[in-house]
């Protein structure tokens, strides 16, 4: 079975998501792209029209008007707008996949916890781009060796950081750190982001440091990371582990490690280049994760239907 979906917010993220759904959405049918400006003033809506997708230009009113056409809404607006829209989606019986930092619903990383949250809520949040890239790595370590502390460092090209990220940089680090703990499983989490203006623009790069007991089996950790990386690649084709978990011990750092070691993993995310350039892996991983989550929603509803349950709408 497939789910019918609408995208609210035809900006860069919404437009990239549209192309991804059209390119490789297996169980997701895009029914409508909704914005707040006339088509001639919106590149995203124009792109939808060009692809033969119906559009709406009255924001949440368009959602209400066409709510019978779709079951899933991708929110690609802003945190403030999603906070206003979320109760309306709920009232209309729509399942919301929130790509903004609003986090009305639980943090969701498809490869880690989507099954856990799907039964509980009709609104899931995609954390942050850096969170989608690094939380699975923390989870991969944590499931074989308890992670006392996890730290992620994300480097993104200046050109791929829009005004939303720039004006709310604290929101990025705070939300990502919370995701490292709540979804990744670290006892404590910290997130760092840097913007690099180099030309040509750098690919999105991430480093994940985890602090674990010095008695861990590093081969077991590497196998766990390999497994999860392969799963992520099924929905983020440009995801690549560039440095497999490598041990740093007391001799390699300038501070006291006690009876722990540090495992450092690095990864790069190259975008698919549908709408955004390949270096903007940070944006790409958000739209890929959102589509991945929608596919899981479709699978789950199908499974529920198969056992005689009825989709509630």
């Amino acid at each position: 079975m497939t789910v019918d979906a609408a995208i609210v917010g035809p900006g860069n993220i919404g437009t990239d998501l549209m192309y991804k759904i059209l390119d490789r959405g297996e169980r997701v049918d895009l029914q409508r792209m909704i914005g707040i400006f006339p088509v001639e003033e919106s590149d995203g809506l124009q792109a939808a029209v060009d692809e033969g997708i119906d559009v709406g230009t009255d924001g949440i009113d368009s959602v209400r008007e066409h709510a019978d056409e779709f079951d899933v809404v991708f929110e690609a607006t802003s945190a403030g707008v999603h906070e206003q829209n979320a109760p309306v989606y709920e009232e209309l019986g729509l399942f919301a996949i929130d790509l903004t930092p609003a986090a009305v619903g639980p943090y969701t990383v498809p490869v880690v916890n989507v099954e856990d949250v799907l039964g509980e809520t009709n609104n899931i949040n995609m954390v942050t781009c850096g969170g989608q890239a690094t939380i699975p790595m923390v989870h991969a370590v944590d499931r074989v060796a308890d992670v006392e502390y996890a730290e992620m460092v994300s480097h993104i090209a200046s050109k791929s950081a829009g005004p939303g990220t720039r004006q709310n940089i604290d929101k990025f680090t705070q939300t990502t750190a919370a995701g490292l703990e709540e979804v990744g499983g670290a006892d404590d989490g910290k997130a760092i982001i840097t913007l690099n203006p180099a030309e040509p623009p750098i690919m999105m790069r991430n480093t994940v440091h985890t602090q674990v007991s010095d008695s861990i089996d590093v081969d077991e950790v590497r196998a766990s990371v390999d497994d999860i990386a392969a799963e992520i690649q099924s929905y983020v084709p440009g995801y690549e582990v560039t440095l497999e978990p490598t041990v740093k011990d007391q001799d390699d750092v300038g501070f006291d490690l006690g009876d722990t070691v540090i495992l450092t993993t690095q990864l790069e995310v190259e975008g698919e280049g549908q709408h955004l350039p390949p270096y903007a892996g940070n944006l790409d991983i958000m739209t890929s994760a959102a589509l991945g989550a929608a596919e899981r929603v479709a699978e789950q509803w199908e499974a529920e239907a198969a056992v005689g349950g009825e989709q509630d709408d």
Partner: protein
Amino acid sequence: MTESPRVVDMTLRDGMHAVDHQFTPEQMAEIAGALDDADMDVVEVSHGDGMGGSSINYGMAAASTEEYLETVAPQLTDTELSVLLLPGIGTVEELDMAADHGADICRIATHATEADISQDHFEYVKERGLEANGLLMLSHMAAPETLLEQAQLMEEYGADVVYLMDSAGALLPDGVRERVGLLVEELDIDVGFHAHNNLGLAVGNTLAALDEGAVTVDGCLRGLGAGSGNTQMEVLVGALERAGYDVTPDLYGTMDAAEEVLLPMLDEDTMPELDNDSLMLGYAGVYSSFLRHARREGKRYGVDPRDILVELGEMEVVGGQEDLITDVAERLAEERGTAVEADD
């Protein structure tokens, strides 16, 4: 041109890089006390990478910012207390904590071209009624006109001062003059300058900046600081006096703080030195705090730290990207077939 520049001592902040962020609160209190006795204008305290910088990536500090501020603040009478924050590493929460612990000045630093990530932070500092300084890092990487645009953003957000940071110690005196000169001419707020000594130019560049109209300048006792170190404070005070400036800090007091208080806390490994690796930072234009990380990774992977630094310079890495050092060291080792002992 100012007659009485403000002098900011960062031994307890940029100096933290040189000791892997391991000063204890007690050591900080002792140094701060000596600087207060010497009538230093401002003392800056925090992890080398600012509040929130304590991390695996940059090095865990020996204590929390809160503990450092709690021991240092009571040592200061007329000397003002400054803290540093890099948005993306620390957040408004740290500014809030520092304001509660007696900070007078909050310095907000971004890469030379990324000032627009700092608006919230400036607004918060002004809301708390503190002095806000904007710091544009790695200013050798941007043209004077670009730096001016970025400085104007910080001015608009509420900065009382904008500093140009020569974070790589890569600027030559002419480069300092054209950058500082343009900002002094075009901004309505004060301009500051921060040097590193990787090309041996820290004191000279600082004098050039003052000559162009900068009014506040940075240094560290004994020239501690990232890379080869910052402008050597006691030398700067002496040179400023000789140049005819009227400076607040006492020359002997500053010299004594350096030699009698700081020096016994240092050893062969932490003593500031303009050696081959730190010279390379200035030559290649690389963020000074990368030095000790590049040495460690060079050792792990059997690669000359100078080669790592040159490669990082070519990649145009910016402050905060310390983790890429591992990546570069690994790649160079692989290309050259150096024995890798990094695994396990």
